[in-house]
C-alpha cells in the first residue's frame, strides 16, 4: 500500500493550487464588495467577508476530511448518497425556508444550507457510478433512459423549489453523456436549440423557416439521397420549424414574468434600465469602467456604492472587472480555463470508468456555472442566479464545490492502486 506515504502523497497540487487561488480571489473581492470604512477589520463576523473566512476554513477541513476517507467509499456509497440527497431535496420543499422566492434552504444555526448545491455532487456520483458499471452502454435505449433519469429527477425536484437556475445546471451533465458515447446530436441540440430559440424571437419566423428550408436543401444535396437520410432531414427540419413557432408560446406561457423579462433584456428588447435591465446594465457599467488596469483594490465605485445588486454573490465578477480591469479579469478566465482543462486531463488519465466520468461531471458542472455566471455579468446570457464556483460568497456553494472537487482529487491520488 502506498497509503503509508501519507494522505498528501500523489495529490495533484496543480489543481489544488488553482482551487486555492480562486478561493483567495473570491474572498478578496467579497471584502472589496462589502468594504466600508466602519467595518474594515478582516475577521468581522457581522460582515460577509468575515463569514466567508469561516466558510473557507470549514471548506479546508472538509477537504482534508475527504482526503483521509477511503476513496472506495464514494463509489460504493454513490447510490446511497444520491438517494439521501434526493430525500433532502423533497423534504426541503415542505420544511425549508424560503430565500429570494426559492424554497430550497434549511436553516441550520444562523446559516442557511441549500441541499440543491450538494445534490449536484450526489448526482455526479450516481451518474459516474451508473456509467462506470461495465455492462452499461449508452447505445442501448434502456441505459440512455436510466442515465437521463439520474440527471432529470433531481433537476425536476429542484425546479419544484422554484430554483430554475440550479435546475438548469443539471443539464450540463449532458457533456458526461457525450463523453460516454451518446450521439453528438443531443449535445449539439443543447447548443443549437437555444440559438434557434433566440433567433426565433428576433428574426421574423417565416424568414427563419425559409432559412431552415435552405439549410435542409443543402443537407439533402450533399446527402446520399436514400429514404432514411431524407426522412431524418425532413424530421429535423419539421421539428425545428415546430420549435420556432412554439417558442412564443413557451416564452409567454411557460416562463415566469421575471424570466421572460430577462430574455427580453438579453435580446436588447427591454431598454428599461431601471427595471428588468438594471442588473445587467449596472454590471456592464461596473466591468466596463475598470478599463485595462482596473481602478485598484477597494477603489471600485460602482460595486462599493452598491450600484450592482448581488455583488458579493452572483455578480462578484463585477467587482473583479471594475477593480482589476481587463488584466485581472483575463487572469481569472485563464485560471478557470486551466482548472477545467486540468480536470479533464486528469479524468482522462483515470483507469476506473467511475473516476473518469466523475471527473467529467465535475468539469461540466464547474464550467456551466462559470459560463452562465460570467456570461450573465457580460450581458451574453439571460440573468440566471447561480454562483461563480469558489469565488462567490456563500457557504453551501463553496462547501459543495469543494467536496465535488476533493472527491475527485482523492480518486485521482488513488488511481494507480485500482486495478
Amino acid at each position, binding site marked *: 500500500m502506498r497509503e503509508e506515504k501519507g494522505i498528501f502523497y500523489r495529490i495533484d497540487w496543480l489543481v489544488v493550487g488553482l482551487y486555492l487561488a480562486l478561493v483567495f480571489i473570491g474572498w478578496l473581492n467579497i471584502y472589496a464588495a462589502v468594504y466600508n470604512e466602519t467595518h474594515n477589520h478582516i475577521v468581522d463576523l457581522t460582515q460577509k467577508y468575515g463569514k466567508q473566512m469561516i466558510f473557507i476554513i470549514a471548506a479546508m477541513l472538509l477537504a482534508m476530511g475527504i482526503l483521509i476517507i477511503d476513496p472506495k467509499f464514494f463509489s460504493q456509497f454513490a447510490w446511497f448518497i444520491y438517494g439521501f440527497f434526493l430525500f433532502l431535496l423533497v423534504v426541503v420543499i415542505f420544511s425549508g425556508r424560503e430565500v429570494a422566492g426559492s424554497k430550497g434552504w434549511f436553516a441550520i444555526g444562523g446559516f442557511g444550507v441549500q441541499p440543491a448545491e450538494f445534490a449536484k455532487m450526489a448526482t455526479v456520483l450516481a451518474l459516474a457510478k451508473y456509467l462506470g458499471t461495465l455492462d452499461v452502454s449508452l447505445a442501448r435505449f434502456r441505459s440512455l433512459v436510466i442515465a437521463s433519469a439520474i440527471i432529470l429527477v433531481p433537476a425536476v425536484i429542484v425546479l419544484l423549489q422554484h430554483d430554475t437556475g440550479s435546475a438548469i445546471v443539471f443539464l450540463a451533465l449532458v457533456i458526461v453523456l457525450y463523453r460516454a458515447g451518446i450521439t453528438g446530436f443531443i449535445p449539439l441540440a443543447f447548443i443549437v436549440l437555444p440559438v434557434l430559440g433566440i433567433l426565433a424571437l428576433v428574426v421574423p419566423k417565416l424568414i427563419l423557416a425559409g432559412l431552415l428550408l435552405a439549410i435542409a436543401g443543402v443537407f439533402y444535396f450533399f446527402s446520399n439521397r436514400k429514404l432514411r437520410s431524407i426522412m431524418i432531414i425532413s424530421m429535423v427540419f419539421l421539428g425545428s420549424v415546430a420549435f420556432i413557432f412554439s417558442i412564443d408560446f413557451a416564452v409567454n406561457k411557460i416562463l415566469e414574468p421575471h424570466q421572460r423579462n430577462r430574455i427580453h433584456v438579453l435580446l436588447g428588447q427591454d431598454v428599461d434600465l431601471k427595471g428588468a435591465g438594471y442588473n445587467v446594465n449596472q454590471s456592464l*457599467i*461596473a466591468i466596463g469602467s475598470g478599463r485595462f488596469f482596473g481602478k485598484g483594490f477597494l477603489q471600485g465605485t460602482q460595486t*462599493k456604492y452598491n*450600484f450592482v445588486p448581488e455583488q458579493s454573490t452572483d455578480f462578484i465578477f463585477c467587482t473583479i472587472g471594475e477593480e482589476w480591469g*481587463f488584466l485581472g479579469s*483575463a487572469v481569472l478566465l485563464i485560471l478557470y480555463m486551466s482548472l477545467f482543462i486540468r480536470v*479533464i486531463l486528469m479524468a482522462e488519465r483515470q483507469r476506473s470508468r467511475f473516476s473518469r466520468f466523475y471527473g467529467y461531471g465535475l468539469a461540466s458542472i464547474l*464550467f456551466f456555472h462559470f459560463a452562465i455566471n460570467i456570461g450573465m455579468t457580460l450581458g*451574453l446570457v439571460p440573468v440566471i442566479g447561480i454562483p461563480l464556483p469558489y469565488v462567490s460568497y456563500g457557504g453551501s456553494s463553496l462547501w459543495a464545490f469543494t467536496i465535488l472537487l476533493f472527491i475527485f482529487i482523492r480518486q485521482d491520488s488513488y488511481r494507480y492502486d485500482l486495478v
Partner: protein
Amino acid sequence: MERIYADRKYIIIGFFLLIGLLYLVRLFYVQILVDKYILSANNNVLRYVTQYPARGLVFDRTGKLLVYNEAAYDLMVVPRQVKNPDTMALCHLIGIDKAEFINRLERARAFSPYRPSIFEAQITRDSYGFLEEKLFLFPGFYVQPRTLRKYTYPVAAHAFGYIGEAGPDVIEKNPYYRSGDYIGINGIEKSYEETLRGKKGMKIRVFDVLNRDKGSFRDGKYDTTSVAGTDLYSSLDAELQEYGELLMTNKKGSIVAIEPQTGEILCVVTSPSYDPNLLAGNIRKKNYTKLLQDTVFVPLFNRALMAMYPPGSTFKLVDALVGQQEGVLFPETSYGCPGGFPLGNGKKVGCHPHPSPLDLIGAIQISCNSYFCRVFKSIIDKKSYLSTRQAYESWRKEVMSFGFGKKLGIDIPGELNGNIPTPTYYDKYHGKNRWRSMTIISLAIGQGEIGITPMQLANQAALISNRGWYYTPHIIRAIGRKDSLNKAYSTKNRVLVDQKYFDVVIEGMANVITNGTGKIAKIDSITMGGKTGTAQNPHGKNHSIFIAFAPVQNTKIAISVVVENAGYGAAWAAPIASLMIEKYLNRVVKRKDLEESMTSGNLINGKQPESERGKGNILPD
C-alpha cells in the same frame, strides 16, 4: 468500445476554450473598446455640487449697508429615501396638510425617485431651527441653504433691481449659468451681475446607489473653490433717497440728484415704487404679478429713466446757451413781450404778464416765452446757414451734446433715449423743406415733440453748474474697495457750448430762486440756481418740473424733480427740490410745514389739497 469516444475530449476542451475566448473578446470590447460604460459609471457616482459664492454687498456713499444676503433654507426631499416618516409631525412643522404632503411627495417622485427636489422652499428661520434638530427622524429629507437678497432700506427698488433664476434663453447663451442659478434681472443686480455674482465653485462628491453622500472625489483634488462676489459702493445717499420717496408719497413722478463734479447719482426716486424686499425670494413671482397688474400706480415703471416729458421752460436754458454759442444772443440782448409771441397767422405763443422788455438774465428769471421764441427763431433763421434744415441740424447737434435725445449710458438698465426730433421727422410731418423756424417754434419753450427723461434733466442741471461738461451719471462709485473709483465713468463729456456763456445763465438761474419763478425754493442759508418748467400734458393736468443746483459756487448737488399732473413747476416740483437740497446739504430739514404739505399731498387719488403756501409764490413759468 469506449476508446472510440476518447477523441471527444478534444471537442469538449475546444468548446470550453471557445467560450473562454468569447468572454475574453467580450471583456476587451466592454472594458477597452467602448467608452460609454466608464461615462455611465461616473454619472452613477459623481455629483457635481455647485458651490455658490456669496453675492456682493452694496453700500451707500456714507458706508451704510444697502443690500445684503440672508441665509434661507429649502427643505429638500429624495423620495427614494423616504421611509415611514412621521407625516403629521412634518406636516405640522411646515404647515401643510396630509393630502398636500402626499401630493408633493408624488410630484417629487415623478421628477426622480433618486434626485433631490424642493419640498418646501425657503422655510422660515424658526422652523429651520426646529427642523434641524428633528430632521434625523425624517429620512430622505434634508435642508439646503440658499441665500436671499435683503434690503436694509425699503427704497430705490428700481435702481437695485432684483435677482431670479436664470431663464432658458440665458442658459443657452451663457455657459456660466445652469438651471437653478440666480442672475440679476434688473437694476444694478443686472448691470453689475458679473461683479456681484463672483465665481461659482464645484465640488465633486461621490454618491452611492441610495444617493447617500460618501465624501469627496479623490480627496477633493478636482474641486474648485468659489470666489465671493465683489462688493459695490453706491453713490446713493440712503437717507436722501428715503426722504425723496417720502416726499413723493402719493404722487407720480421722479427725483434725480447728481453730484456734478463726479456724475455720481445721489438719489434716483421714482414714484410710485415698492419695497424691494417684495421681489426677493419665493414671494417674488406672486408679488411681481400683483405689481404688474396695478394699472393705477404702475409701480414697476421706472419714471426716472423711462418716462419722457416735454421739458417745458427748463429748456429755455438750452436756448440761452446755444443762442450765445451761435452768436445770435448776448447777455444784453433785450426783447419786449407783448403778452406773447405772434406766430403770424393770427395765433401766438402766449406769455404771462411781466415787466417788459427784458435782457437775458431777466428773461430766465421770469421765464419769458416770447424772449426765447425770438432766440430760437434767430438761431434757425441765422443767415450763415443755407437752409432751415441745415440750421436745425446744427442746433440739434448742439442740443444733443447736452445728453438729450440719446441714452446717457448710465449703469442702471432701461433708460430711454428721449427725443430731439430729426429733420426727417419734420419732413414727413410737414412735407420736405416745407417747415420753417415758425413751424417748430414750440421747441423754443420745450414743448411739442421734444422728450427728455428726468435723468437727462438732472444731468442738464449738473452740466450747467459745471459750466459745460459732465461725467456720465452713475450709481456705483466704487467697485471692490471704497476708494477705487468706477473706471467706466471717468471720461468728461463736453457740451458744444463754450464755458464763458454759462456765467450769465447761472446768474439768471440764481435770480430765479432769489426773485423769480422759483422763489418758493429759496433757502436762506444756501445759494441755489434753478429753473421751473411746466410740461403740457394733452391727457390731463400739466406736469410740474424743476431743475436746480446748489450751492451756486462749488456745487454739491444738481437735481431734477418731475411731479405729474401737478401744474406749474413752482407748485410741487420746486418746493420738493428745495427740501431735497436742504436735506442733502444740511442733513436736517427745518421747514417742517413745507415738508408736511409736500408729503401729505395726494395727487393720484384726485384730492388736491390747497397748500398753505401763499398763492403769490407759485408763479407761472
